[in-house]
């Protein structure tokens, strides 16, 4: 009939099921997924490879246009050449936006307002080369000599900090990841706090405490809510990954998968740390209205860490980012970026994880003590008061 068993899995299950069943939760998850998919699809539409339409009209334009197309292709830029009947037609096409530029008689470039620099630069370069070539032939050189002189190899470019396409893509994915981590840590931390207040203000806590130890109650609550947060994050990651592959915006899916893994891992590290503190914030008040006040220090801590995390996506090796990636409250929002961008050394990663786990292990017993002692006290509880040896 009755058996000795651990109670926290039952508690965790309730937290998970009741919250997953909540209509508000389901709607907000759906909205997040729709927004994410929308952003991915829209940005893919804008990120097509660069392509220009060039109208050509008049003598010599067609040949020059063809050379521009070849020169552009060498740079990874697509140029579509449109042959038009006359200049008026070309003006109309440029004005209507059907062509980005028009080449008139191989002697004049027509654009609407802002010249498309890349295209105009290409036309100018090709045109200068062609005119130089003709001038040199007129001056008496053979076409072979001219070509030998003019067709030089391009100068090689050496980047001091090579930004390859892969790390660019990773930076984007990890940026979204930090955004999600921030939202997730804050929202689920708040859920822990308000869940504690709900039990306190509804007085159900006294019924619970007659059969469950406070430490189990806290453990079950944090685990249940944390699992839901992790599950939601995983769902968002998978949908994002699927949507990105569907529209072909991911050139390096394995990198994105690794980044999602990083985000999930650091959610776990960050959540237990913050959830314990949020539980304390909840346990020392009795009304939801008072929760905002006690949560303020945590809100500031998460928000500050989030901003450092954002700067780290563009500047992952700054001193600020390096220090913040080691501190337990900011590392979840900073370290994933530094790891993903390859800026964190192995020892930094190990140290960061160790500090995070250590800090959480240190915070949990203190949080449990405050929580246990504050649970049955009415009104606003002073932390100092419950931490005194006779506080229980």
């Amino acid at each position, binding site marked *: 009939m009755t058996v000795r068993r651990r109670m926290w899995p039952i508690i965790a299950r309730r937290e998970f099921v*009741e919250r997953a069943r909540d209509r508000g939760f389901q709607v907000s998850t759906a909205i997040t997924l729709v927004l994410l998919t929308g952003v991915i699809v829209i940005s893919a539409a804008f990120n097509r490879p660069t392509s220009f339409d060039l109208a050509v009209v008049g003598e010599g334009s067609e040949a020059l246009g063809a050379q521009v197309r070849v020169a552009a292709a060498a740079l990874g830029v697509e140029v579509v050449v449109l042959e038009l009947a006359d200049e008026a037609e070309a003006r109309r096409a440029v004005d209507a936006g059907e062509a980005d530029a028009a080449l008139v008689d191989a002697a004049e470039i027509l654009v609407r307002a802002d010249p498309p620099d890349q295209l105009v630069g290409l036309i100018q370069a090709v045109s200068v080369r062609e005119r130089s070539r003709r001038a040199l032939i007129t001056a008496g050189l053979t076409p072979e000599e001219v070509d030998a002189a003019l067709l030089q190899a391009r100068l090689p470019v050496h980047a001091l900090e090579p930004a390859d396409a892969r790390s660019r893509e990773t930076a984007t994915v990890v940026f979204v990841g930090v955004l999600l981590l921030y939202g997730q840590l804050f929202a689920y931390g708040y859920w822990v706090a308000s869940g504690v207040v709900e*039990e306190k203000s509804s*007085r159900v806590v006294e019924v619970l405490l007659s059969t469950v130890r406070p430490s189990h109650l806290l453990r079950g609550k944090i685990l249940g809510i944390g699992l839901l947060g992790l599950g939601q994050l995983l769902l968002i990651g998978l949908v994002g990954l699927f949507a990105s592959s569907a529209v072909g915006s991911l050139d390096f899916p394995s990198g994105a998968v690794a980044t999602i893994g990083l985000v999930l891992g650091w959610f776990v590290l960050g959540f237990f740390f913050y959830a314990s503190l949020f539980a304390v914030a909840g346990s020392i008040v009795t009304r939801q209205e008072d929760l905002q006040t006690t949560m303020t220090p945590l809100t500031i801590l998460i928000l500050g860490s989030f901003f450092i995390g954002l700067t780290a996506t563009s500047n992952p090796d700054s001193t600020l980012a390096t220090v913040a990636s080691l501190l337990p409250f900011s590392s979840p929002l900073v370290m994933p970026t530094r790891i993903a961008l390859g800026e964190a050394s192995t020892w930094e990663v190990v140290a960061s994880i160790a500090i995070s786990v250590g800090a959480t292990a240190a915070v949990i017993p203190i949080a449990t003590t405050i929580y246990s002692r504050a649970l049955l006290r009415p009104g606003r509880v002073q932390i100092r008061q419950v931490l005194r040896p006779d506080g229980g």
Partner: protein
Amino acid sequence: MTTTPVDALELVGLVRRFGAVVALDDVSFRVAAGEMVGFVGPNGAGKTTAMRIALGVLQADSGRVRWRGRDVDAETRRRFGYLPEERGLYPKMRVFDQLVYLARLHGLEREDARSQADRMIELLGVADRARARAESLSLGNQQRVQLAAALVHRPEVLVLDEPFSGLDPVGVDVLSGILRRQAEDGAPVVFSSHQLELVERLCESVVMIDRGRIVASGRIADLRARDPRRLVRVEVAGAPERWLDRVPGVRVLEPLAEGAVVELDGASESDVLDAARAAGSVRHFSVVRPSLSEIFRREVAR
């Protein structure tokens, strides 16, 4: 049901202070298995503190709580049923789910918990609200669900803080029946109440507490037998104001609309009757037993 001497819930020498206030001062009493005991006393006397300590919700500064001769631990308390003074349910959780959850926390397997939850909502007449969220229930129905929560895990011991407050007369009858059955099935049942007539009707024994001290405990019949007072209830229509004050050897214990319950302190029953006839037309005259509240007042005053 035969009970061995140790087959009881025992509170032994409980002391609890809140700062400078001594809430419990050496409180000891026992509730035998199969016995229903009323726990009475004024507000702030220490009833809730004692019950909370019995359930381990609160720690005593010293003293012990024993069940069947052994100090109770968390595992034993899991088989206790508790109705706290401050009622509490999860406002947004469905009634049925709530009961299943609490039954599980008390150690029941899932299927058992579900069938017990079904049984309890049926028993307490809230089966039609099983799928409703607790916050949408009327206060009376919330109270019934709260009682179901205290009983859902087939508790071995029942500790109920003011279980009858907030119940309508039908609810009082239903709960009385349930508690009697629990006691008949061998559970010690202790409940606090301010409705002393109800306690008198339901319980064979009482524990009386005042300012943290037990002032009396035992069978109501024994406490009454210990009370040497002779009481008379007399009601007279058309009598002058305060006519009883002028009858020598009589003390008014409880004034009534047209008379009073008086203690005979030198006068005889017939002296009072004579005075009543002289005062007006006698509507009621009887020799009465001291009620529980009169016994309580006397014990506190001692």
